[in-house]
């Protein structure tokens, strides 16, 4: 086989050997090329090229000459490759356009890049979350752990470590916090003000903070503690630290504490600590019967009640009269039942409190004390209040606040259920939440039948939120969905309609 070797020598043309090796590889990949080399013409390089049969006899090269050598099947192929190599050599170099953005792979590397970091927001799967939180605490960072499925044992050890280090361990299973205006995980854009919130519940904190903000007052900070902080095993470690923090925070005048009813021992400790505080408190243990609280505190079993106490008694949505609205609703389907399909777990709990207090028989998959736990196919006469954020619905799927379609199947079934007079819904807005939950909902219910149950919704959010609360409300109302100013009032309206069903 005939082989053609072409050499081109550039006198005094220096290029780094690395750049030359890369060019050599490019040229060698040209069609018809057997081998190619771009090298500075040092004696050892010349020997290498001679050994490879790349240097023609008599080619005189010196150390500061660039040698381009191509061995190819045909003369034209060799010539094309050689011309290509020369073009590449003369091409102006791009200015770092290939530079890929670098990202740290660990918390410690991130802290090295940005030493000002003081808080870790952790939302990795539960199996790994505790280890990441420990790393953050070891580096002196406060932690908000959004992840759930973390063992009680890990939660306790993390919170003890945090307390020893003077760090705030928010969570696990902490859905929201707002620190100095920074929305952490699911949070709303709130007016800044003098009311602080300590929340063992994500949507509870969101509901109260939004109601307060929309009523014209503001939030200083909202500290999440995680759903289990007030259980006996944890003993309210983070809650007590949060009270300390608000006590010394000059921005905060009043603090709202929101939780499911705590273990009695923990409740005693926490209420005692509240009694020692210089600030006034609202204590909201959702569903707890009226309890004795210290002189500087007031008690509410509902989120709306807590917001009103924080506002100094100013009523929420005073213009909204459930009885009057109920009487204006044109159709009141005869079934008499209520089904609540909630994205917010605490909103579901508040609904249970209100429906039970109104004398209705209730069942729920996330039953509060005194409410019957839901069993499929049982208790047909009872109202069903379903927390769609519960594990059984979210295993392997996003939370319904992120992906409202989690609710779709249950909603379609409810729309065709003749036993129902009312379907209760919630929309949670804010950072982290779906961009337009109203659009999703109204599309789904657009072709509902004439006899479909009445749809009642509440919208947790603010005008400043990315989704804009009033825009979401308008969309719902245009689709014939009744919107109440708060979740509690939506529940009251549902009761008013269901109790007068068929009339």
């Amino acid at each position, binding site marked *: 086989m005939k082989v053609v070797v072409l050499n081109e020598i550039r006198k005094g043309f220096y290029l780094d050997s690395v750049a030359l090796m890369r060019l050599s590889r490019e040229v060698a990949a040209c069609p018809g090329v057997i081998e190619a080399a771009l090298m500075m013409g040092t004696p050892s390089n010349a020997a290498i090229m001679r050994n490879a049969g790349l240097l023609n006899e008599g080619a005189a090269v010196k150390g500061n000459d660039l040698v381009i050598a191509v061995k190819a099947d045909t003369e034209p192929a060799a010539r094309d490759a050689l011309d290509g190599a020369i073009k590449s050599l003369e091409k102006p170099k791009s200015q770092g356009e290939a530079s890929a953005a670098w990202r740290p*792979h660990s918390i*410690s590397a991130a802290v090295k890049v940005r030493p000002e970091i003081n808080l870790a927001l952790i939302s990795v799967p539960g199996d790994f979350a505790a280890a990441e939180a420990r790393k953050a605490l070891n580096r002196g960072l406060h932690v908000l752990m959004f992840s759930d499925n973390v063992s009680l044992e890990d939660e306790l050890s993390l919170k003890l470590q945090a307390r020893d280090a003077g760090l705030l361990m928010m969570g696990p299973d902490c859905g929201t916090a707002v620190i100095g205006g920074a929305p952490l995980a699911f949070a709303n854009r709130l007016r800044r003000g003098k009311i602080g919130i300590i929340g063992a519940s994500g949507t509870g904190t969101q509901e109260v903070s939004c109601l307060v903000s929309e009523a014209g007052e503001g939030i200083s900070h909202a500290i999440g503690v995680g759903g289990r902080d007030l259980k006996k095993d944890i003993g309210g470690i983070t809650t007590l630290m949060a009270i300390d923090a608000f006590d010394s925070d000059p921005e905060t005048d009043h603090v709202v504490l929101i939780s499911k009813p705590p273990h009695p021992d923990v409740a005693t400790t926490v209420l005692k600590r509240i009694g020692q505080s210089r600030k006034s408190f609202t204590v909201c243990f959702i569903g707890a019967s009226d309890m004795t609280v210290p002189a500087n505190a007031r008690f509410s079993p509902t989120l709306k009640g807590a917001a009103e106490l924080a506002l100094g008694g100013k009523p929420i949505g005073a213009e909204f009269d459930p009885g009057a609205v109920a009487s204006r609703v044109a159709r009141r389907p005869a079934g008499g039942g209520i089904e609540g399909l909630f994205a917010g777990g605490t909103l579901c709990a508040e609904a249970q409190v209100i429906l039970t207090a109104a004398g209705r028989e209730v069942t729920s998959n996330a039953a509060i004390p005194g409410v019957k736990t839901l069993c499929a196919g049982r208790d047909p006469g009872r109202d069903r209040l379903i927390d769609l954020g519960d594990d059984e619905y979210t295993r392997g799927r996003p939370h319904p606040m992120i992906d409202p379609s989690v609710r779709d199947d249950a909603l379609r079934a409810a729309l065709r259920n003749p036993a129902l007079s009312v379907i209760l819904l919630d929309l949670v807005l804010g950072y982290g939440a779906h961009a337009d939950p109203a659009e999703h909902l109204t599309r789904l219910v657009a072709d509902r039948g004439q006899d479909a149950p009445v749809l009642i919704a509440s919208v947790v959010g603010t005008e400043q939120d990315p989704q804009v609360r009033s825009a979401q409300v308008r969309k719902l109302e245009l689709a014939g969905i009744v919107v109440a100013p708060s979740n509690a009032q939506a529940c009251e309206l549902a009761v008013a309609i269901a109790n007068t069903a068929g009339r």
Partner: protein
Amino acid sequence: MKLIEDANQQALARILEGEPRLIDIVPASQLMKGLRDRMILHAGPPITWERMCGPMRGAVAGAIVFEGWAQDLRSATELAASGGIEFHPNHHFGAVGPMTGMTTKSMPLFVVENARFSNRAYCAINEGLGKVMRFGGNDASVLKRLAWLRDVFGPVLGKAIRASGGVDLKSIIARGLSMGDEMHQRNLACSSIFLREIAPWMARTSVDNATLAECLAFIGQNDQFFLNIAMAMGKVMTDPANGIRGSTIVTTMCRNGTDFGIRVSGLGERWFTAPVEMPEGLYFAGYSEKDANPDMGDSAIVETIGLGGFAMAAAPAVAGFIGAGAPSEAGNFTRSMGEITVAQNPEWSIAAMDFAGVPTGIDIRLVVDSGIVPVINTGIAHREPGIGQVGAGVVKAPLACFQQAVRAVASDLGVS
């Protein structure tokens, strides 16, 4: 654990406080007690003849002939294969060697002293490019050059170094980093600075202009001349950090063409080994991946002190060695290595990283946790003995060494 953190701070301080100076060139037999006839020191963790790769065997045969323990390469190979040669790692004798890393009794070695801790480390003289023993070369030209280094160059340069009172190495490295060297695949700047500093002393101590010119040209023609000095420097800086109980800082990384080995401060002299990986890189004309030998050499000692692949940001041109990487991505190597090290070396800063110091003090815990392994800039040897270098590239340290070492630390500290 506080014990570990404290131990690591101590190990790190010992690395950073080192004051390495090149003080002499001396034949190995005068430096190492116990380095006898028919004993060969090699790169990497311990290895037997049976498990040695082609280039290592080629270099061993060449070294045997060089020392006169056999007449020719064939009888040298027979001697080695029949158990007639004792093999030890350089690291067990306070030394390091590039690629095959051959050290025998008559070879002249650089002597680098750590003034802060009064310890010394040694490395043979870089032979230049082409056919060389460090790549398994063993023909007459290779042995002739080694003889010249032993009889002419070593004594001339040694005399000059002694006359100079010793050469401070840290400042050469600092300048080299600002001139595009990372001290493993690129030593162009450091070699030039060294030549600039030592040339007057060579002239002052020389008795023969022709020999002087020959020796100056030998340094001047070898861009990698400084590598072997940098390696001895790495060894002399890491040795004082060895043996601090609880410390998880790596004090040795090296390879013998078969195994990759590491040693860890808190675990003393124990080796943790795993099969060495193939380098990825670019090949000289006429060669490709199929010609390549698995990675070799004690030279990864420079990465152990934050140079080489760890200082890639200082040498953007070298980043092209990984093949796909653009020079503008060189900083990402250094940043990644920052994730597995405990500190930066403030004396060795990189302009392109806003003068951040080179990442120093590899922590085995961080390696295993992140899955990010040290990257080592390396030359690629031909898999057959006697052919030499066929390319250059990057090799990753095998994760398994670090995993074993983490388990060993845990067991040593009673953690399970």
